[in-house]
């Protein structure tokens, strides 16, 4: 029997009858066959016999027609769920797609703008790294320099908030840079990709002038929230409305299906300035979640790091046992920034003794920054300067709206 490849027509002896189907793959020692009814079953490979070679799949391509009278947006794709595709014949979910596919997958985008598109990466978002952040910031910078009205970055949702924060610090943008993803895969009719995609395009053509994340505001298909790139966090593994703003209300909303954009007074507005790129990041920075009973010896893993963000308890604490180790790190030149696991609220290490001891050990208070935002910011600050006082000053100064001087009540 010839070697079976995906798509081969096979006869399958089973249950006393012979049925025809399409061989798909081997899985757990069984051959997966798609019957003509559309159902897949697993059968013993030896029960199959070859009938015919599979027909070559016609390449699927739809020409994207652009409307030249509309403003131009750029779509930079990094991978993730938002435009993933399922091969109906094999059942495989393909992560290889072009940004043009997004225009095919999200009908209606072409009514909002014309697009240029680039595939920067096709990765699962847990594989995102500093090198791709830099490439991303540079690509966004280039497109803005070339005059696009706004930029959409499609991204896996798991680490989207990190990337949005990284680009926030690396780029001073006069136009919207909108990160968008989807929580439910694009191959399902209920996917949030279409609504998120259309809302992101509406936000990217709006009066916004900063880096934002645009995702479902609630479980309803009624509106997307526009979150500041340095204030947003994924707060649910699977819900559509997983993304939430911290320490401030969202920058605005995009109604669906009208796509009307409303911006809050806090939102930075679109400007005519040129963008500015600061694309150096210090990679030797760590992020440590303190937990009760933590062995102080774990701190030695961060020896040699230029920076360490601690996600502490409450107002910003670790156990007293940790303080000596932290002092050793700061003495060796590591910048240590304290944030809180509470996520909501501001760090204050001047209330309890442990906090005062931490300050005495050289710890910098991370204000109301989310731990991962403080981590990204510290990478960026250490990439800009080696001067200890300047590092301290920059960490204590809101640069991209990552914290406010006053904690807003009611949140």
């Amino acid at each position, binding site marked *: 029997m010839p070697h079976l490849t995906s798509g081969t027509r096979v006869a399958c002896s*089973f*249950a*006393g*009858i012979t049925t025809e189907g399409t061989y798909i793959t081997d*899985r*757990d020692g*069984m051959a*997966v066959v798609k*019957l*003509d*009814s*559309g*159902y*897949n*079953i*697993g*059968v*013993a490979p030896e029960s199959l016999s070859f009938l015919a070679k599979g027909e070559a*799949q*016609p390449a*699927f391509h*739809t020409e994207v027609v652009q409307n030249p009278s509309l403003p131009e947006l750029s779509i930079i794709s990094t991978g993730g769920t938002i435009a993933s*595709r*399922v*091969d*109906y*014949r094999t*059942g495989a*979910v393909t992560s290889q797609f072009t940004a043009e596919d997004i225009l*095919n*997958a999200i009908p209606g985008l072409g009514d909002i703008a014309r697009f240029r598109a680039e595939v920067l990466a096709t990765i699962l978002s847990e594989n995102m790294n500093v090198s791709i952040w830099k490439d991303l910031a540079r690509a966004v910078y280039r497109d803005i320099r070339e005059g696009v009205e706004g930029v959409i970055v499609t991204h896996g949702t798991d680490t989207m908030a990190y990337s949005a924060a990284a680009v926030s610090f690396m780029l001073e943008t006069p136009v919207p840079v909108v990160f968008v993803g989807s929580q*439910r*895969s*694009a*191959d*399902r*009719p*209920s*996917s949030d990709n*279409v*609504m998120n995609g259309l809302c992101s395009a509406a936000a990217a053509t709006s009066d916004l002038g900063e880096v934002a994340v645009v995702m479902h505001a*609630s*479980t*309803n*298909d*009624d509106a997307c929230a526009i979150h500041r790139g340095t204030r947003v966090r994924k707060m649910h*593994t*699977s*819900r*559509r409305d997983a993304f939430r703003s911290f320490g401030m209300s969202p920058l605005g909303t995009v109604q669906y*299906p009208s796509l009307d954009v409303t911006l809050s007074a806090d939102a930075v507005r679109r400007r005519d300035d040129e963008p500015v790129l600061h694309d150096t990041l210090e990679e030797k920075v760590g992020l440590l979640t303190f937990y009760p009973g933590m062995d102080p010896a774990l701190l030695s893993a961060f020896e040699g790091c230029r920076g360490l963000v601690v996600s502490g308890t409450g107002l910003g604490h670790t156990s007293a046992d940790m303080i000596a180790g932290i002092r050793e790190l700061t003495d060796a030149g590591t910048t240590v920034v304290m944030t809180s696991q509470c996520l909501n609220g501001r760090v204050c290490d001047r209330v309890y003794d442990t906090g005062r001891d931490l300050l005495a050990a050289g710890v910098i208070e991370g204000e109301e920054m989310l731990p991962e935002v403080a981590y990204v910011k510290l990478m960026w600050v250490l990439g800009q300067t080696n001067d200890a006082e300047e590092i301290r000053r920059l960490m204590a100064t809101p640069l991209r709206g990552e914290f406010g001087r006053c904690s807003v009540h009611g949140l």
Partner: protein
Amino acid sequence: MDYETLGLKAGIEIHQQLDTREKLFCHCPTVLRDIGERNEEFFRYLRATVSEMGEIDRAAREEMMVMRPFTYYAYDTTCLVEHDEEPPAPLNPEALELALTMARMMGMTAVEQVHVMRKLVIDGSNTSGFQRTALVALNGMLPAGARIESLCLEEEAAQRVEGVTFSLDRLGIPLVEITTAPDMHTPEQVREVAAYIGMLLRSTGRVKRGLGTIRQDVNISIREGARVEIKGVQELALIDEVVRREASRQVNLVAIRDELLGRNASIDEQTHEVTALFAETGSAILKRAKYIGAVCLRGFAGCVGREIQPGRRLGSEMSDYAKKCGVGGLFHTDELPAYGVTAEEVDTLKSALGAGEEDCVILVADTKKKALCALAQIQRRARMALEGVPEETRKMLEEGSTAYMRPLPGAARMYPETDVLPVPVSPGYVAGLCVPELLTAKEDRFVAEMGLDPALAHQLAFSAQVGLFEDVVCAGVKPNLAARTILATLRELSRDGVAVEAVGDDDVLAVLLEVENGSVAKEAIPDIFRAVAGGMNVRAAVESVAPGISEDELLSIIRTILSERVDFVQEQGMRSVGPVMGVVMKEVRGRADGKKISDLLKKEIQGML
């Protein structure tokens, strides 16, 4: 109708909900809820996804012609899986075990590895836009000779509340879909096979009962017709009528086709705006319409208005297609003048379109966009009339006629559920499953071994309480007492408004055992159940309703009663036993066994004579 000459072929798909503890892909209970108990509502849009080949499934495409926000009701017994906000849990092993048991009962072969698929359905009944379904077994045979092609394990869809609002309680309840080969050739055969499969499924004792828990889809064709799938026949009693009506629909459509072809009928490509013609009309619908469109069907006169099923015309079929665009319906000149449209208006309309005696003009009134969409659908359906019977999915109406739902879907609407891993099924596991006794065999056994009356045995075997009956008999209660209590007493109490659902199986068993060992009279059973339904435990209920009565007490009651009726007893002799018995029974109210009372009473009366 001679079905053999017509070449009638029919097959059925039976969908039966399983009575498992949890749903198929999450750990929520399989309970239905009152919509008033909902604690959340949300709404979503669905859109057909494009396949790798660049196709959208034809059924899905049609559902998408109007984008609607679907509203869902959620409960404290539904979770994020039903909300389509969380990946599914692994396939429920209890449901798989039950499906495999059913497969064995029909002599089917289980697949060695079960793959869960997604079947595209975007009518709103699934929050995800697809129904999860898995082929579990193939190729079986029923004793009557009908071949069973496949058995699938599926998740139940959400129940429609009204319009585009759905309730999530039903979504995800496991069901089996059993598909027969198209082996049936008369309406009666279809009904018999459906009834047999229903009996077989209920024999497991682990299927849901009640309206809507079992539904049949019927596939029907005649030789000159086409395959039509009729969805959701809930009542077995209607299934043969559905087949009869569909067969006659196909016969009538074929006859209309022949007539149209004989007339050289055709469909105008051009549609016309005729809004101005009805500016002064007396028809309320036409008067308030923003746009009235018309199309002429040449040679169609008389055919559009012709009845093809009771209450249904070719015009109704066209109207079903038009409604997909969101319009309310259509008018056609076969039925006009009527509905406030005058004969003069019809004449003006016909001459505006150049329509003659043989032609039929169709009118649609709505917004321009909807009306043009609807006219295109009407032209499409009219072209199909020249071909004969279109392949369709249809829904059943009351009484057994049907209406168009959507085209038959293609196999391309099925793709793998990547979030659920394949489940291996070993032949040893299947062979080890316990196959339950068929209800028909049970019925025979009740007659042969327990001496029950055949009608009672039948009623009992097919009742939902057959399990309780067998448990009670097994514990030592006489079959007749058990049968009467379970079938009659509880039902009568329920009819009287007693909350018998509070009387558990254990309570029934406990009370019957008390009767069996003589400590409670069987006459006291209804009152004890009343007390239990009111919240008492069985012990307390027995104490309060039927405290034991000693033989001395009983004798003294009997003597008192007799002493008040000396003349009557003397006069009637032993014939007085019956009337006096009633008086004594009333007095002791079930605290003593009837036979015992009767024995004592006879003895006393004999003594007096």
